[in-house]
Every structure is written in C-alpha cells, then in structure tokens.
C-alpha cells in the first residue's frame, strides 16, 4: 500500500468549555473523496479549519506526506486549495481581478486558465462586473472557479454547494470526481446528499465528541 497523502493523528478540538471532537484519526489516500457529515454545530467547520492550518487543535497533529503541517507550512500550502465559509472574494473587484489576485498569492493557481474557468462556472459575460453586483450564488461561483484552474493535489472545501443551483451542484460534483480520478484528494463538508455514483468515504461527526468513519 502506498503511504497516505494526509494523515490525521489523535486530533482533539476544544472550544471554550466543551470538546467538539476527541482523538480523531484517519488518513486519506490519493484518489479519495471524504465527506464530513454531521448535524449543525457538530464541528465540521472547526475540523476543516484545523486541517487547513487556520485553527490550532488542542491536541494531535495533521501530517501531509509525512510532514507535520504545523512545522512546515509552505509545502502544504502549495499543495492545498482551501475554500471556506467566506469566499475570499472582494466585493469591489470584478471576478477577473479577484481570480488574478488569488492566482498571485497561490502558486497552484494558473492565471492563464481564468477565462476558461469563468466559463466553466457559467460566469461568462460577468468578467467585468464588480462582485457586489452579483447574486449570492454568482459570488460563490467566482470562488469555485478556482477548482477549474488549480493544480493543487488536495482540496479542502467547506460547504461548497451553498447558494449554488441544482445544475451547478451537479457540475461541481463531476469536477471533484475528475480531480479524484486524476489522483487528487478532496475533503468536503456538505448537508447535500451526494449522488451514489460518487464513490467516497464519509466521516460523520456526532456532535457529542464521537465520530464514525466508513
């Protein structure tokens, strides 16, 4: 068996008083999709933020290709695409400018692909409209256009389908599958029921500190 891409060892998260989750361990191979699932407030976002390195876990570690991400961020940051609850889209800039800026700070984003990426998320013709004039879903789409211009191995997506219409959801799902089949790996949280055709594992947070993986 090849060594895992991502390894999570004994992760605990504590916020204020209570444990969100405790001693969570799993690993992810190349080509896998992991859906994090659970009721509201179960700790999905907290887990994603710990995996991205934005939040510190109270215990345990996250290892990317064997390296602790807390020790060496730069290799990890080059290989990871993170998309959080907030989109990272500046409302005064246009979609084009926003993506250019994102490409400038992330080496894994290729700015020459921006026009085709915008086309893929059905935003052709909106390149030059300031984002505050776009609808909620269109704003999310600008952010999601990154999935079409990235060569990062590891995608970390927190509720990517928020505000996206049904057709858009289907399109994103197939993009994730394509990424996995190319050897990438994906972790996403969502309350949507993913289609059966999408082969994946699920990590269900229970909301009482325990979890199930299958």
């Amino acid at each position, binding site marked *: 068996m090849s060594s895992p891409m991502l390894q999570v060892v004994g992760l605990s998260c504590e916020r204020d008083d209570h444990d969100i989750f405790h001693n969570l361990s799993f690993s992810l191979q190349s080509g896998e999709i992991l859906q994090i699932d659970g009721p509201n407030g179960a700790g999905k976002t907290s887990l994603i933020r710990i995996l991205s390195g934005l939040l510190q876990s109270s215990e345990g570690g996250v290892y990317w290709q064997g390296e602790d991400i807390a020790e060496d961020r*730069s290799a990890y940051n080059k290989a990871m695409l993170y998309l959080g609850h*907030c989109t990272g*889209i500046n*409302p005064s800039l246009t979609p084009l400018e926003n993506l250019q800026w994102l490409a*400038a700070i992330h080496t894994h984003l290729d700015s020459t692909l921006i026009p085709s990426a915008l086309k893929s998320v059905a935003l052709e013709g909106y390149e030059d409209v300031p984002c505050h004039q776009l609808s909620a879903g269109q704003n999310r789409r600008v952010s999601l256009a990154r999935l079409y211009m990235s060569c990062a191995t590891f995608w970390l997506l927190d509720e990517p389908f928020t505000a996206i219409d049904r057709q858009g959801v289907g399109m994103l799902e197939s993009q994730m599958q394509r990424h996995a089949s190319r050897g990438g790996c994906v972790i996403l949280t969502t309350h949507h029921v993913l289609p059966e055709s999408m082969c994946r594992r699920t990590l269900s947070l229970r909301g009482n500190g325990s979890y199930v993986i299958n």
Partner: protein
Amino acid sequence: MYRELRLAARRIFDWLNPLVFFLLVVCLFPLAVSPEPALLGKIAPGIVWVAALLATLLGMDGLFRSDFEDGSLEQIIVGSQPIALLISAKVLSYWLLTGLPLTLLAPLLALMLSLPVGSYEVLCLSLLIGTPSLCLIGAIGAALVVGLRRGGVLLVLLVLPLYIPILIFGSGAVTASLQGMEATGQLAILGAFLALALPLAPIATAAALRISING
C-alpha cells in the same frame, strides 16, 4: 500590491478622503482656537502633525477589515507567498494613498496657518520620513483588532501611545527650524524609527494576523 492600488483606484474619492480629512481638521483649528496669525504660526507645526497622525489613523481601521470579512485574509494565510511581504505591499500602497499626498499637501496648509516659509522644507521632509512609520506601526494595531467589533476605537487606544515619539520628533523638527535651529537631529531620529519599523513591523503584523484569524 497591484490589487491594493486597483482597489483604491476603484473609488477615486477614496484617496482624496484622507486628504480632505487632513485639510478639514487643520481648518478646524483656526475656527476653534483663534484666527490670529502670530498665535497660529506658533502652533502650526503641532497642528499639522497631529492632523497628519489622525488622518493616517483614520483609515487604518479598514486596512485589513474588509479582507477579514470576505475571507481574503484566510486565503493570504493559506497562500504560498510570505505573509510579511504581502503586508509590506499593503502598507506601502496605503502610504502611497495617504502619507504621500498628505506630505504634498502640507505646504498649502502651512500657508493657511501662517507658518513662516523657511520651515516648509523641514515640515515636508519630516512628514515624508515620519508618515511611513505611522503606517507601519498602525498596521500592527489594525491586525490585532481586525476580528473585533468596534475595533476602530480600540485601535486608536492601542496605537496612539506608540505614535507619540514620532509625533514629538516630527513636530519638534519643525519647531526647531521655526526657531532657526538645525533640525537634522530630529530628522535623523525619525529616520532611525523608520529603519527599525520597516523590517520589524511587517513581521509583528503577520504574527498578529495569524492570531486574529485563529478565532
């Protein structure tokens, strides 16, 4: 950097605003204090410097706030560019849009406050060296309060005490030249502050941002 400038250029009035604030505050004094030229001339260096300081401080609050709210800050932190570098670029563009025009406008205000002509050069020079330090130090404060509600007022409390030495030497330089003395000493100290702040402040700011995001 480019994005920053573009963002600012988007609203052409944005970069006029600190200027107009500066102008207005300076104009408040003759109204509030007294219009006598002799008195005004005496207090002019202090007023110009205080107004410049407040004008710099005013917009500082928003330096990282919008990036924090729309998630750009998270992207910067998970990005592959050095954070301190991006911050330096941001502060530089902030200074280009506030400190620099302020410095250019200063002679006009000095004129309005009947400051003797001989001191204009020193006034501009002191602002030119002093305002970048103000921006750099302010950025640390802005990074610390970015996640907080009503951070703006807290920012002032955190940053003003740190501004005081710069204020003293800045206005001191002008006052010295007003009294016919050499201002090189004060200007050199301002330069030393800048030399210290230039490499260190972005690092402190980066650390502060990391902490603020960990919420």
